């Protein structure tokens, strides 16, 4: 199994996961209230910062990898170093999208987009009914 084929399979898996996460997130965003998502990124600001940190690592690896590839292409245009760069970039882009959408790790509370909460019968009412 050549490295070319491994590179193709790996990047396509990463890109497919990226796309699936964003599409699922977008379809949820159309249904739910946008304020719920914004409140969530406000409350979990650490995850938001971590998402942009992943994007920063992706951009750093893009820059360094392609500067090295440009310099190597002067002597050998058939260099494969850009494939290693692409794997790193697409992996961190996937991490960015996963953290940004907030679909994984799973949240504790379900977002129901501002639907009214059903009133719970209180304990005193139930005991009162039993006494009658």
């Amino acid at each position, binding site marked *: 199994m050549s490295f*070319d*084929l491994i*590179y*193709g*399979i790996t*990047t*396509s*898996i*990463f*890109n*497919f996961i*990226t*796309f699936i996460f*964003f*599409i699922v997130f*977008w379809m949820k*965003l159309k249904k739910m209230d*946008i*304020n719920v*998502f*914004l*409140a969530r*990124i*406000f409350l979990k*600001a650490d995850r*938001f*910062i971590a998402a*942009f*940190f992943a*994007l*920063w690592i992706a*951009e*750093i690896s*893009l*820059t*360094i990898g*392609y*500067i090295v*590839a*440009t310099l190597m*292409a*002067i002597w050998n*245009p058939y260099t494969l170093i*850009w494939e290693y760069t*692409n794997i790193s970039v*697409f992996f961190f*882009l996937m991490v960015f*999208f996963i953290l*940004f959408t907030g679909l994984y790790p799973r949240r504790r509370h379900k977002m129901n987009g501002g639907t009214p909460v059903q009133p719970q019968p209180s304990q005193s009412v139930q005991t009162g009914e039993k006494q009658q």
Partner: protein
Amino acid sequence: MDIYGVVVMSVFAILAAVGMIGTYLSSQIIRILIKHRKDNAPLTAFLLNPESSKHEIKWFLFPAVTVLLTGVFTLAQKLLGPISFTNPLIAGTFLLAYIFGILTAMLVVYVVYRWYKKMKRFA
């Protein structure tokens, strides 16, 4: 150096330049977010403008679609076999993978620039 080498080198140089701009913008965003770690002022601004925030989030749809197309054409080209510019199918998938890859990098940097513009006043 032949014509193939020149084309490859210019593509690599474009991607390196795009990466430099993206590095600067994303590092500025991280700096602004960490600076306002206590009060979360940039995120409060997002919270108070839900309509424009939704518009900004929707922009990420374009890189998400182009990144999928990059993956599809990369896998197709690798499964079809080694590069040969005489075969139109292999040459087409190879070139489309390149084009969508460059488009993805540019779109991500453009969307990050839009986010940076919204956070700039907190810097």
